[in-house]
């Protein structure tokens, strides 16, 4: 990978440098070719014009006086001294046309049509074949003396020199390009190496650093950006090393701190356990106190209920005794009456005994989880409060199918019903509701369970206290009349001991407390009450 990167930078720089230099060289070389050709052409033209002018000037007298001997001799001499001239043709408008070449001279009867077509007022030239020579630079120079055209001078120049110059030029260009290539390769190699080597070196060092080796350093010392990069790299490694060292120190300090904190926490945990135990114990104590208060409250209420239950039979028993006394005083106490009175008395005493049994059963502490019929339990509970309800003219209605039974703690469920009826009774009495009414409705709930709703028509629970009614020691009753733990205990019994739920809502008439119970709830064996 490293080698690949190195090659990539090196080759890119090398080829970029080579391409640029070669492109510039080729550009100038190919720009120079047409310019050089044009320059050579101009040289040829100038040379031809100079030679022509020289011949014409030297031969001017001879041309005018038609001294052909001089003309021939002069041109023979010119050709002898100038091997690049193939021939000279003197074509006067009137007179002999003389052609002189390197080997001979002769008079022409007629000038070739091709050459004749070139004769005009201006200097012209053309590459043609003539006198056995190919590629002749044929130059035509009009001979004019004092504005009078005398004739034309045709000179055939060899293009060999011109071609040689062009060939030399191409050769030179090839040499230059070749030499440039060699120089490009050499200079490009060192240039690319000069550029890529430090980058590659720093890249390799960076890879080593990335691998975790912070001991490496760049040895590049240059007075340019790469030198700055090298110094920065070394500073960065120094900084990294310092940071790493600091991090290690921090880590050690942190570990020590963690150990210290762990130790402190362990010590704190020990204290916390003790505190938790203490708090749990306090909680249990408080709960026990609550239970005790609840039981006391319940017992107080039950005693009141017993008093209500016993008042009527006691009055009846008192009447029976008064009747027996009156009959005795009247002497009408006979055996039949006595028997009837005794039977009546026994029945009343029996009833009172039964009432006591009922209350005793209600307060029996340990009850077993068992299947019980809802209607039976509700009815039995209502009978405990029957006297009080009647005393306040409260109409209690129970709407419950006969065959609904559940598994649970019968006594505690009964206590919850009792609490809810008591609460309804108290608020009905407190608010002096006309036609007070409590309705207990049991219906199968959706899914697996039943809903027991205790509804009154006392106007409902104020919205402001809805969130607090299940709090312990919260009560709306007059001081000394309520403990504030009835609903709290009821909720605990239903939700904790019977796996159900207790919630309340208001309707147009009053409050509705709904007990939702499952048919097979995870019942705790032990009652909290």
């Amino acid at each position, binding site marked *: 990978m490293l080698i690949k990167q190195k090659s990539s930078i090196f080759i890119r720089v090398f080829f970029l440098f080579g391409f640029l230099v070669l492109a510039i060289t080729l550009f100038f070389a190919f720009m120079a070719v047409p310019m050089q050709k044009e320059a050579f052409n101009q040289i040829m033209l100038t040379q031809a014009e100079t030679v022509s002018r020289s011949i014409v000037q030297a031969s001017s007298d001879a041309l005018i006086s038609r*001294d052909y*001997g001089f003309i021939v*001799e002069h041109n*023979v*001499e010119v050709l002898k001294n100038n091997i690049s001239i193939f021939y000279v043709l003197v074509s006067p408008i009137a007179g002999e046309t003389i052609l002189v070449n390197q080997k*001979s001279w002769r*008079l022409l009867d007629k000038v070739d049509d091709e050459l004749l077509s070139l004769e005009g007022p201006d200097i012209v030239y053309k590459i043609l074949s003539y006198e056995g020579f190919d590629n002749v630079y044929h130059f035509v120079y009009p001979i004019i003396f004092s504005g009078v055209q005398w004739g034309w001078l045709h000179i055939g120049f060899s293009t060999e020199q011109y071609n040689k110059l062009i060939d030399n030029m191409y050769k030179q260009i090839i040499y230059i390009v070749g030499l440039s290539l060699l120089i490009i390769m050499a200079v490009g190699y060192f240039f690319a190496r000069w550029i890529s080597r430090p980058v590659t070196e720093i890249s390799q060092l960076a890879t080593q650093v990335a691998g975790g080796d912070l001991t490496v350093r760049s040895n590049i010392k240059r007075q340019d950006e790469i030198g700055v990069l090298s110094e920065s790299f070394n500073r960065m490694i120094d900084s990294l090393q310092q940071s790493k060292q600091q991090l290690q120190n921090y880590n050690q300090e942190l570990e020590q701190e963690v150990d210290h904190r762990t130790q402190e926490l362990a010590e704190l945990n020990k204290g916390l356990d003790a505190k938790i135990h203490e708090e749990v114990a306090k909680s249990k104590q408080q709960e026990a106190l609550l239970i005790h208060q609840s039981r006391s409250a319940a017992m107080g209420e039950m005693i009141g209920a017993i008093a209500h239950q016993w008042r009527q039979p006691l009055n009846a028993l008192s009447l029976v005794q008064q009747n027996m006394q009156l009959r005795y005083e009247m002497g009408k106490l006979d055996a039949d009456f006595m028997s009837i009175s005794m039977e009546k008395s026994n029945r009343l005493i029996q009833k009172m005994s039964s009432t006591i049994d009922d209350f005793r059963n209600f307060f029996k502490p340990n009850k077993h989880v068992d299947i019980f019929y809802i209607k039976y339990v509700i009815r039995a509970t209502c009978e405990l409060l029957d006297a009080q309800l009647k005393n306040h003219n409260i109409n209690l209605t129970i709407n419950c199918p006969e065959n609904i039974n559940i598994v649970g703690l019968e006594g505690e469920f009964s206590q919850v019903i009792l609490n809810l009826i008591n609460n309804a009774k108290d608020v009905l009495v407190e608010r002096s509701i006309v036609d007070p009414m409590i309705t207990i409705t049991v219906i199968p709930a959706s899914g697996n369970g039943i809903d027991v709703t205790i509804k009154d028509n006392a106007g409902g629970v104020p919205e402001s206290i809805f969130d607090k009614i299940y709090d312990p020691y919260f009560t709306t009753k007059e001081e000394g009349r309520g403990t504030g733990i009835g609903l709290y205990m009821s909720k605990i019994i239903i939700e904790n001991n019977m796996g159900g739920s207790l919630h309340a809502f208001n309707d147009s008439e009053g409050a509705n407390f709904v007990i939702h119970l499952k048919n097979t709830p995870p019942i705790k064996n032990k009652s909290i009450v």
Partner: protein
Amino acid sequence: MIGKRYTWIVYLCSLCCLFGFNTWSIADTQHISFAYLETGLKDLNDADRHVAVQLLAKELIRNSENEIKVFSLKSMAEMLDMIKVGKVNYVIINSYLYLTGRQKLQPFLSDEIWGVQRDKEAKENYVLVVAQDFNYQNLNSLLGKSISIHKDYLLQNFYLDYLVKKEAKLPIDKFFKRIKDTRTNSQAVLDVFFKTSDSCLVPKYVVDLVAELNPAVLKGIRIVHYSGVEFIPALVLRMNNNSVDASNIIRNNLLTLSDNARGQEIMNLFSIKSIKPINANALQDMIKTYDEYQSMTVKK
């Protein structure tokens, strides 16, 4: 002490060697002087002429330690003055000038004479050329006509003068209506061919040369007179004051001059083909003709 003594001996030996070599070197080095008359070498312009003679002189002392001196002289008198004082070892001279100063030069000359050759042969035969179309049969038929001649060639002009004097008994300027000075001998022939001149006097080889370039020329011209006398255009004369060694070196170099490229180039500058040794008798025809001309002049 012994070491110091030897050191002095080494110093002395070194000094002796140094002076000895120098003395030997100075003794061996010799200045060879060449002199030429400008009037006789008009084929070359002034600058080229002196350079060409210098190059020739240098080539002639090739492979020797000698040094050269080249004197460009204006007149025969000046040349004679220098020869008399021994300042000149070799003379390069036009044959006509040799003929004119022969009597005075002779005491200083050795028997080593070199003749300049412009064609295949050293000796040149002059011809009188006329146009084919005209009925000119001899020199006398050209009376009152024109003639083309290269005036720089003194010997040709001398011969024309001699011929006219001999054949027509008239001075040349009286005989010909017009004497045209041509730049070259070839042009003189061409003048006749193109009929811009009635006649010309040129060496025979020039006619051949012109005909070689254009054989049609021969159809337009005709030779009506041959000189018969064979002329040598220029001479290289060795003075008798020259040392034997230097003479040998120069002789050898002159003999091999045309064998090497540099020698050829130098001779091309002079428009000559070679420089060959000639016998003194080879000059006799020219001398006789000149003497005859002189006698005709004296008579007149």
